[in-house]
């Protein structure tokens, strides 16, 4: 299986899916699913293959190439598998929506573009795929209309800013080194000055920072996540946003090289340290803002930003342990956030688009599978031991503590505790507590939506208990960056400063739970009661209009709301408003009076003459 075939399959599949949709929607669904499953098969068959191919020399004579290495493979498999699950999920979720052809087309196109990004062997094809991804994402974010429209504009404007920065960076590299192939750039980079490297790092960091929503550049994300269709929110948060992490890895550890990017500047004011601090801020502030959200998807979106911070901290700290943590967290985040978005999507599906945390509750009896997904998802998000999130977070904490960065560690840990609060609210207000009367007879979750949720839930546990599975290929990636490899075994990680043995913890917990479960069963059997048989000072709980999930952390709201505002968003809004104002006024120079226009002409003439007198052309 060659890479050309893979790329052809990805892009061609997207187009063909669209065409198939013109014939019949059932055919399209099946075709889309087959396509994405086929991609999974192809990519997994390429495990441990390292190859480079040149696609064509068409772009101004620059060779556009594809290459496969451990890093690319790792991201590629994550992309294609999440895509396959999401496509499967969409088969039910999108059934009664309009423009589904378009939806599938864009979804598959985005996946193809992401695949092309991670596989691209040179910067121009990287950029082209990046942009295809950006605009197709824009088209899909806007899919839900109404509130989605400003979100889409916000996204595409910030994305454009990012890509313009990247374009400048790429062209500057091309000008400096006369090549765009990454492997050749790596060789040339040794000759570059430190200042130039710093310039490259910064300008690419803006791009990837926007994509990965590092704090001052994050403002596109909450709206975009919240307003796109749920399966796509999953892709968006799981993989698409994390292309930023891929980019950071690419620029920091592949192109500029670890030995350069980790020694840029001095002391606190070094590139990677500032990046790590930005990551820390990214963890703390959005996590606390998430606590104030009342929209399930928006809450998850803010967490998406916050979790991105862990990855940034991990990879910016730049030890093999931290790097492994950061990369592993990227994968883990993808798994659990996709799961969470799919669970919320299931609720949206069942309750006809309701995702307001204040008006739902008690759904765990009605939608057990979605609840399972939600529970394991938030466990992973918090990093409860035995879920995958724990391992990666553990790696990051350990790196930070032993790397003598207690304040960074504090930020990361604090972020975790903030996460617990807000995701518990998420879980509680959606699934636990009282089931409102109007949701007693909600739609059932279809099988096609249940399967991905179950698969992802199991993956969370498997990766949590046997973290060695993904860590092995991450280890290969780290080695390719020139770091010392970790001692990874199937159950965890061991190093001279402490080991992590997940299967150990798992087995003990399992035994203890079993023992207590037996004790529990042996004790007097309990009577089952319904949710209205609750003690509320002797009063009967009213069945209608009774929902106490509103304002779950009311005391905290009162305390924190004045301080927890997204100042950057406000700043950008101000800038946008100012730009609009400027745009609205600058066109007033076209006054509509011909005499004014003639004056402009005369003025131009005068200007030219004075320019001649100043610069003396002749």
């Amino acid at each position, binding site marked *: 299986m060659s890479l050309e075939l893979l790329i052809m399959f990805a892009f061609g599949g997207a187009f063909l899916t669209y065409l198939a949709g013109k014939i019949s929607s059932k055919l399209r669904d099946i075709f889309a699913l087959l396509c994405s499953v086929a991609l999974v098969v192809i990519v997994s068959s390429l495990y441990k293959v390292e190859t480079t191919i040149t696609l064509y020399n068409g772009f101004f004579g620059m060779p556009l190439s594809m290459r496969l290495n451990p890093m690319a493979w790792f991201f590629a498999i994550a992309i294609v598998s999440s895509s396959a699950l999401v496509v499967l999920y969409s088969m039910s979720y999108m059934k009664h929506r309009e423009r589904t052809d378009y939806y599938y087309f864009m979804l598959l196109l985005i996946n193809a573009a992401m695949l092309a990004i991670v596989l691209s062997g040179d910067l121009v094809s990287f950029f082209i795929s990046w942009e295809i991804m950006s605009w197709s994402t824009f088209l899909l974010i806007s899919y839900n209309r109404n509130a989605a429209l400003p979100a889409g504009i916000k996204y595409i404007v910030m994305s454009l800013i990012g890509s313009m920065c990247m374009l400048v960076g790429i062209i500057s590299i091309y000008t400096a080194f006369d090549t765009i192939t990454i492997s050749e750039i790596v060789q040339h980079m040794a000759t570059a000055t430190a200042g130039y490297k710093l310039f490259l790092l910064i300008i690419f960091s803006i791009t990837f920072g926007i994509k990965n929503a590092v704090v001052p550049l994050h403002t596109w994300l909450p709206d975009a996540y919240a307003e796109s269709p749920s399966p796509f929110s999953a892709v968006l948060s799981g993989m698409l946003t994390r292309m930023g992490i891929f980019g950071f890895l690419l620029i920091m550890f592949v192109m500029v090289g670890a030995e350069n990017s980790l020694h840029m500047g001095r002391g606190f004011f070094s590139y990677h340290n500032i990046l790590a601090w930005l990551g820390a801020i990214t963890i703390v502030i959005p996590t606390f803002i998430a606590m104030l959200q009342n929209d399930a998807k928006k809450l998850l979106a803010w967490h998406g930003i916050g979790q991105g911070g862990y990855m940034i901290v991990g990879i910016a700290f730049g030890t093999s342990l931290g790097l492994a943590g950061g990369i592993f967290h990227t994968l883990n985040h993808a798994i659990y956030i996709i799961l969470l978005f799919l669970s919320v999507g299931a609720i949206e599906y069942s309750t006809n688009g309701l995702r307001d945390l204040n008006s739902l509750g008690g759904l765990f009896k009605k939608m057990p599978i979605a609840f399972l997904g939600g529970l394991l998802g938030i466990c992973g998000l918090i990093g409860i031991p035995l879920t995958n999130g724990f391992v990666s977070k553990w790696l990051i904490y350990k790196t930070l503590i032993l790397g003598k960065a207690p304040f960074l560690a504090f930020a990361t840990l604090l972020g975790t505790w903030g996460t617990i609060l807000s995701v518990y609210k998420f879980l509680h207000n959606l699934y636990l507590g009282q089931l409102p009367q109007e949701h007693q007879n909600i739609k059932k979750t279809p099988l096609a939506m249940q399967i991905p949720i179950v698969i992802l839930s199991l993956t969370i546990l498997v990766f949590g208990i046997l973290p060695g599975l993904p860590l092995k290929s991450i280890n290969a990636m780290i080695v390719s960056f020139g770091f010392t490899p970790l001692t990874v075994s199937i159950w965890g990680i061991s190093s001279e400063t402490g080991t992590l043995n997940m299967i150990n913890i798992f087995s003990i917990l399992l035994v203890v739970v079993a023992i207590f479960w037996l004790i529990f069963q042996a004790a007097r059997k309990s009577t089952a009661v319904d949710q*209205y*048989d609750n*003690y509320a*000072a*002797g*009063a*009967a709980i009213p069945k209608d209009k009774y929902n106490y999930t509103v304002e779950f952390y009311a005391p905290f709201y009162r305390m924190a709301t004045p301080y927890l505002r997204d100042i950057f968003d406000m700043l950008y809004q101000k800038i946008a408003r100012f730009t609009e104002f400027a745009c609205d006024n600058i066109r007033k120079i076209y006054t509509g009076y011909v005499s004014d226009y003639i004056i402009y002409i005369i003025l131009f003439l005068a200007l030219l003459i004075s320019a001649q007198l100043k610069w003396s052309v002749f």
Partner: protein
Amino acid sequence: MDRNQISKWFKNPGKMANKYSFHVVYFCTGCGIIEIPPSITTRWDAERFGIIPVATPRQANLFLITGYVSTKTLKAIIRTYEQMPEPKYTVAFGSCPINGGMYYDSYNTITSLDKYIPVDGYIAGCMPRPEAIFIGVTHLWKLIDMDKADGYKRYRRDYKFYRANQEQLFKELGWPPLFKDASL
């Protein structure tokens, strides 16, 4: 006190523990509640007998009806009583729950509580002093020892009777019957 007799503990730990760990629903039904604070604080210190007030019937095994029971309160009392886990005991406190006391002809006070929930013991007086409470508790111990404090069993057995009385008083109770298969 026989809570130090190990053999009894081995014979029936549940019963013994129930005796010496009265968790009282701290539910203010009437004026008698004024006698509870002295009894649980420094002067009389109910805790030395293992009696402590708890906030929710789910954790309790003793229900003290402290004083007169108005119709409105009765509804909450029934609800609370039904939510207590078995075994559970009820002690009516003061003369009002027994026969209405000084409210014997009041339109909104019930005169006999045991029409609505089973009562295991009465402490007469208006008001009974805290010492009387402890005497009542020791009597209850004896009743438990003799398995005569069987109010909760009676409630289960005669549920239809109680439910009928309750429904007669309140047109709508607001909760389903506790036992489905209870017979008269």
